[in-house]
């Protein structure tokens, strides 16, 4: 809960600290560690065996296709120029968010059902971006969260959403 709150309150964090990049870096690093390593509740056998039809590669391909089509359709100029620093930091953000939402939160919600896990993690994912980009991004980031959550559910791993999210973030600045 605190992690979601801090993600949503990023503008306040940035305003309150003398080094925004360091603050955000520490926040994402903490979310990455917690999201990747906190233990999750054990699933019912029926659920854990239900996710074997897909492999990671087709799920990643579909996700990248969606974001690639989105980037091509939108066109225009990126909001800022691509740089190694920007790509490294946005990659850290992508991996940390996937660990947080698609591993930890998905895993916490999954005992209640895969649909609840996909939708719940997507809703939280969209909500934490509203303070930065405005409420109007909620539908778009909710749809993106559903796509990433779907990847998590069909592959049984948070690897596919990580790869897709990293590529999607790079596409934003290209």
């Amino acid at each position: 809960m605190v992690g979601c709150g801090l993600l949503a309150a990023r503008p306040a964090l940035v305003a309150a600290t003398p080094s925004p990049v360091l603050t955000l870096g520490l926040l994402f690093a903490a979310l990455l560690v917690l999201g990747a390593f906190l233990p999750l509740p054990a699933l019912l056998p029926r659920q854990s065996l239900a996710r074997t039809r897909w492999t990671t590669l087709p799920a990643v391909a579909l996700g990248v296709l969606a974001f690639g089509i989105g980037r091509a359709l939108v066109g225009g100029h990126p909001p800022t120029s691509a740089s190694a620093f920007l790509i490294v930091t946005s990659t850290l953000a992508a991996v940390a968010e996937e660990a947080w939402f698609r591993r930890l939160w998905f895993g916490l919600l999954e005992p209640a059902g895969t649909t609840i896990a996909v939708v719940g993690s997507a809703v939280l994912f969209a909500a934490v971006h509203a303070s930065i980009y405005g409420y109007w991004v909620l539908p778009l980031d909710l749809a993106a969260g559903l796509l990433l959550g779907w990847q998590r559910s069909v592959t049984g791993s948070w690897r596919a959403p990580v790869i897709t999210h990293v590529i999607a973030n790079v596409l934003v600045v290209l």
Partner: protein
Amino acid sequence: MLVLVTYLAALAVTVGLRDDHVRPLYDGFATPAPYRWVDPPAFFASDNVTPAATTTTIALASGGSAAAGIATPDGQFVLSLARGAVAPRGGQRHVLVRITPVDPNQLAAVPAGRPNGNAYRVEMSYQPGGAAVRALARPGSLVMEIPEIGSDLFTSPSGRRWSKLDARTVPPRQLGLATTFASPGYYVAATNLPELVAATASSSDHSIAIGIATAAGALALLVVAFLYARRRRRRAI
């Protein structure tokens, strides 16, 4: 496939509602960078990063110039030129474009209000001849970041007499102006707001409220999921 269609539908609706300033995924690490001033107000001076100029060349063929996007390194001034924006000219192979941030106080006063951020000088010339490009054969578009809310944008060939442009503000922050780019010259935004004073904390307070609401929502979600999962387990036994 349903998730792909859902995502693309959400993107299409968002693009339709928000014009052309949509990214495929609103996400990332950094919050918007502070505005870079040529001549910053006193209380921004200590943290100010001086904006840099940019120079680029665009290929020129028989059909005119190639399509190009040109932005200052900080992204505060962005030009988009379609193919054929600059008319062809005999013996010329390139168009040199230079965008330079300028202190607006070194130029003529704006007709209304006061300058809103930097002025920008756009120079375009045929290469290798060096003749200046006076106007575009096909107008492009210009997006200019501004530090304060305002909707006025002016242009001038020399910086001595300003003409008002038909500009619109760029959502969601409204701290950008978009207009048609028809000719090189000077560009400056203006605002009618009072002179800048120290920033307030309202934006931060707003995000704290969203943060608390999100955390509360996450807690509620977790509780509901826990109760639902417990009921499912009882049914399964």
